[in-house]
């Protein structure tokens, strides 16, 4: 019995290591493509990720490998699309920041996310301001401000892009709560990826066409050919692998699921949540919408 328990623990540890590996890899990989390989097209990169993720999940569903609960078009446009919009914004801005500032500085700025989430939650009435929360806000903000003002290679554009990404991410998390969770729409991680990725790609398309698409067409996609299909495919695969590893980890140990939803107050009782026609075991793995893809491109 003891050895069985040990194996279980080791397996969980393996899943954690795997998740840390993929989530770190994607950050360094994106930075490498955007910065080291001089590919200044962050929206293109995110668009490719989202199209690839859409393709993979759609293929998995078509092949009958996964069951994804159906969603009405109205639900998709009113509840999923706004989340996809914020997600697209957050990923594109976050990746664009890599063109201007170092990974280290980006990670520091990202630590301010709880502040953005709290301020956003206050604005939406999802959270009541308390003295303690105010203390956390002051602590985190002052720490990040100290880091930012002492960064030697800080650029205004880089900081603005990354902070924009943080704000968009905070909005996304609040919207997940307001539009999905509190309305009883609870999708598994894979279903989230299936529905959010195309929404994200759709929202990215217009700004991509204006900012990067035109230039890429003019140069006959030379920058894309410079990076090469194999590397881009590998990069997009890491995003999907990261999502799969996140799913496996959450299913294994739900405790790892980020408790970012601003408030449990508006959440409806568990039994009223969307009943999914999947197998009962997947229930444990059911993640909050958006949590899975949250670790994709700009993570």
């Amino acid at each position, binding site marked *: 019995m003891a050895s069985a328990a040990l194996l279980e623990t080791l397996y969980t540890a393996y899943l*954690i290591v795997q998740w840390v590996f993929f989530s*770190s890899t994607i950050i360094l990989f994106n930075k490498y493509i955007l910065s080291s390989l001089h590919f200044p097209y962050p929206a293109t990169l995110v668009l490719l990720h989202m199209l690839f993720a859409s393709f993979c999940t759609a293929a998995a569903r078509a092949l009958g490998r996964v069951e994804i609960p159906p969603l009405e078009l109205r639900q998709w446009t009113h509840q999923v699309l706004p989340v996809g919009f914020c997600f697209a914004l957050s990923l594109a801005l976050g990746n664009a920041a890599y063109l201007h500032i170092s990974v280290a500085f980006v990670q520091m700025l990202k630590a301010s996310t709880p502040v953005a989430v709290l301020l956003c939650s206050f604005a939406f009435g999802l959270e009541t301001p308390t003295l303690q929360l105010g203390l956390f806000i002051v602590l985190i903000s002052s720490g990040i401000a100290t880091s930012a003002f002492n960064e030697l290679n800080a650029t205004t554009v880089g900081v603005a892009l990354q902070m924009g990404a943080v704000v968009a991410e905070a909005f996304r998390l609040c919207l997940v709560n307001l539009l999905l969770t509190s309305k009883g729409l609870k999708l598994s991680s894979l279903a989230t990826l299936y529905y959010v990725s195309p929404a994200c790609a759709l929202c990215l398309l217009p700004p991509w066409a204006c900012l990067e698409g035109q230039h890429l067409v003019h140069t006959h996609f030379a920058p894309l050919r410079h990076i090469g299909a194999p590397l881009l495919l590998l990069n997009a695969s890491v995003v999907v692998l990261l999502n799969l590893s996140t799913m496996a980890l959450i299913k294994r140990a739900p405790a790892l699921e980020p408790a970012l939803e601003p408030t449990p107050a508006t959440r409806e009782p568990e039994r009223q949540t969307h009943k999914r026609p999947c197998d009962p075991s997947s229930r444990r793995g059911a993640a909050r919408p958006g949590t899975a893809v949250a670790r994709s491109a700009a993570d």
Partner: protein
Amino acid sequence: MSGVFKDIGLIVWSVAVSGAVVTELQYVGYAVALAGVTGYSSYKRAQVAAKLAIKPIDTTAEERGEQEEKLGICTASALADGGSEVSRSAARSPGGT
């Protein structure tokens, strides 16, 4: 906490491998911010735990299971960047419980 460790690891990598320059004051600032982030996480944890505590007692076994799960989920509140505090996993794994 492995979410935090991941972030720290990325900073170390960025400095050691990519040659990013991080000043001492930046480390101090980041440490202060992490203290706030950790505090926020435990605050959320306590908030959700309290929320579960006031639920009616006459719940069915299934509901109790869900509540436990919920509690488990929230035991490890995490950062928005996807850096979940994975350290709690041990407590939730079948080996730990």
